[in-house]
């Protein structure tokens, strides 16, 4: 049976596509070495539009209006600039009420993009550009530790990893956040409250790595300008031991959080990348696996959600669970030596 793979790897090759939201200019070249904050692409993105309906304003037919329009596609128009002028003894001038760029002209109308925003796409992680995607972005390769999570707020940033925990279920509160943490990526367990998030934003921090996050904090976390990743999901779960050990052992290193939302269809997951200096080639991780004895696995549901174990055996046939449901199961040895039975669909391979 195919099983999802959750990457928690101390050393691997990571290749990630970084794309502009709209077509633009890619500013890096093939084989170029980039830092996380380097701009690799730029685009102008207008989120708003403005329509000038000459037909309606002058009460004429669309074809007549077309003949009166004095601007063309791609023209940049200032506020108050003439866009059409009528004929006659006393010509009437139509002016744009907004500044913008003409994107379409026809049927007696002028459609403009307004509120132009310049988008700068950062590399997001140190590495080498292995492919340039014209007008869109690039694929960057780096070697280092990779820790994937379960929930992310969609932001991306890089900073020094600062461990604020003594154990993976520690609760972070606002009083522990001081100016010395400005610009850091903070490794915490759970969050006490929304105030903690607001204080972190005020510092500001560059990111938060949590074991899990309470559903009540999700709306606030979504609005934070810095990336937040919850490694083991939503609720009050401690961080899985493999991820926790890997993160704590890499404290003080430059770390990137790409807190992309977990999407089963596209395969995107929030992740933490810690680039490491290596001389030899490191293989890329497998994206798909089949469950086999001896594998390290992570439980995705209660009663051991987030726990790490070793798959001991796959039982044949169906087994009745304490819930009464019947499912294909595996016997899994937990780190404390306890053997448990887990439905195969509740497992993911760590690797």
């Amino acid at each position: 049976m195919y099983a999802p793979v959750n990457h928690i790897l101390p050393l691997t090759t990571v290749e990630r596509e970084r794309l502009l939201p709209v077509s633009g200019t890619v500013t890096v070249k093939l084989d170029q070495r980039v830092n996380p904050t380097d701009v690799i692409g730029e685009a102008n993105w207008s989120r708003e539009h403005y329509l000038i309906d000459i037909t309606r304003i002058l009460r004429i037919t669309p074809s007549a209006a077309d003949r009166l329009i004095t601007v063309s596609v791609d023209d940049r128009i200032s506020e108050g600039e003439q866009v059409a002028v009528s004929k006659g003894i006393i010509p009437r001038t139509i002016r744009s009420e907004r500044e913008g760029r003409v994107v379409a002209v026809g049927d007696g109308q002028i459609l403009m993009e307004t509120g132009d925003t310049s988008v700068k796409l950062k590399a997001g992680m140190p590495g080498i550009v292995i492919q340039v995607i014209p007008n869109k972005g690039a694929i960057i390769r780096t070697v280092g530790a990779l820790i994937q999570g379960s929930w992310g707020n969609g932001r991306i940033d890089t900073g020094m990893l600062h461990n604020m925990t003594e154990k993976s279920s520690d609760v972070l509160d606002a009083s522990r956040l001081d100016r010395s943490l400005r610009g850091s990526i903070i490794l915490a367990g759970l969050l006490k409250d929304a105030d903690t998030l607001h204080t972190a934003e005020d510092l500001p921090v560059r990111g938060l790595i949590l074991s899990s996050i309470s559903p009540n904090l999700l709306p606030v976390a979504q609005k934070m300008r810095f990336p937040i990743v919850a490694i083991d999901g939503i609720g009050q779960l401690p961080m899985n031991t493999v991820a926790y050990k890997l993160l704590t052992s890499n404290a003080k290193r430059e770390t990137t959080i790409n807190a992309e939302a977990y999407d089963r269809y596209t395969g995107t997951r929030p992740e933490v990348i810690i680039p490491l200096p290596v001389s030899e080639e490191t293989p890329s991780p497998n994206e798909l696996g089949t469950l086999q004895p001896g594998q390290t696995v992570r439980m995705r549901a209660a009663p051991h959600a987030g726990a790490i174990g070793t798959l001991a055996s796959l039982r044949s046939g169906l087994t009745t669970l304490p819930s009464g449901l019947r499912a294909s199961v595996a016997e899994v040895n937990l780190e404390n030596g306890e053997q448990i039975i887990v439905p195969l669909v509740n497992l993911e391979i760590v690797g």
Partner: protein
Amino acid sequence: MPVSLLEDSSLLGVNVGASTTHAVLFDVVDGQYRFIALGQAPSTVHAPINDISLGVHQAISELQKVTGNIFIDDSKQLIKPAQLDGSGIDAFVATMSAGPTLRAVVVGLLPDVSIESAHRLAHTAYLQVVETIGLNDHRRPYEQIDAILSAQPDVIILTGGTDGGASRSILKIIESVGLACFLMPKIKRPTILFAGNQSLIESVKESLQNLSPSLRFSPNIRPSLATEDLAPAARELGRIFSDVRKRQMSGVDQLDAWTGERLLPSAYSKGRIIRFLSQINGSGTGILAVDLDQTAAIIAAGFNGKLSLSVYPQFGLGENLPGLLNYTKIENIMHWLHLDVAPTVVRDYLYQRSLYPDTIPVTKEDHAIVQAISREALSVALKQAISKFPPEANVTNNGMTPFFEPILVGGGICSESPTPGQTLLLLLDALQPVGITSIILDQNNLLPLLGAAAESNNLLPVHVLESGAFMSLGTIISVISSASYGTRVLRANLTYEDGSNSEVEVKFGEIEILPLGIGQTARLSLQTFSRSTIGKDLGRNSTLQVVGGVIGVVIDARGRPLSLPEDPAHRREMFNSWLSKVEG
């Protein structure tokens, strides 16, 4: 005599669900179509595979192992028609529900006419309406354009104007739709369905043909102010669903080709079989089908050939699960729990499950939470669906479910319950049926495939439905009463075919079971007390013939609408007593 194009032929059906792909063989046995066997495999719709064909081939391969037949050749192509050596299949149908919810923008004129119908149309597929634009929309055209752009729709449904009626207003809005599509990158442009004033078809083609990867047309869903006809547009929307899925994931094009480009959404196909059954039923009584799985809650109700189909992705048990809390409170879910669980645990579970919808509950506590969530999701979905039922449903304003016979229950619900008794209690709580009805489980998910088969073979569904391929839970007698808890409300005496009998007195607030096996019939005498009723057509004393099932004859004397005790401990105690009763 109905005409069958596939008489004496075998039919292979494949249904691609969010978590499981089913391959089902139907064939002729003793002159009747029968469900022969089922093969299933995990669906391979998610990353990194993103190719449904792997799951489809595995499910068919499982079916081949069970039946000993060969349906797929070495080059992984369907063998069709059946060969002299016994390999292959005469007909093939497929349905699909897997995949992310499609985002839809609805465009129409009047909110309570074309826009309302367009929303109803959107609910016949796995769509979520994310933006609505109409005549009463006071936004400026460029604001409407920006609204469409930020909605990022997969589908735009254009309606408005009765045939030969208003055209100027709808053309004005269509202009904004065209401009919005023009501004989108080509790869992200939505499929457009025009189901409005038919005199505008040429104008719509002229405006939008080059701005959408697929511009489709259907007859007007509101040909006149007083008429609504969703059926042709729903069929077209079903095809749009398949087209979008083809663009989203690999393997869909091959499956669609195997069906002769008739791959349809599972919910639509299920709706079609319900409409068909309500048509041949002809008794004037409604037929209800419900299902709940990762992708959606589905309520399909048929009344004399008229279908009300509602697909609610927002109430599905998958990625959209936290969205349920936009329609109900956590306290309402807590009301359905038979174990003492903290609200924070329920909330955490709901969110965590949305991250990993494929997981199954291991502990009794988690299972109780899933069952409580399912009850609430199904209950909210049914209430919303009832508000859209046609006049034939005789919906009353007392908050009660209209009378249906039978109630068909989809495989999604069955898979979450370990016993038929637990499934029954979930359904009684969530649906609260009235009168005397039967509940039938479609544990093998056959209904969508029967709906797909019905398009070219109207004998097959009838034969299979009559064949015992479905599991009847039994006959349900629902008592309505204003008596206080513990008051005697009903005496029931069941006389079996061998002359023996079984009698029970039922108090208000109780569930009682009279044993009656699958397929067995018996005479049931009912006597009500304390001004209690069972149905408007039954007096205080009545006798009727009933059919048994896995559970038997179930008397639900908890009243309608069901009112649960406010005290949590008392409520849990009652739940556990009902549970132990239905579990036997």
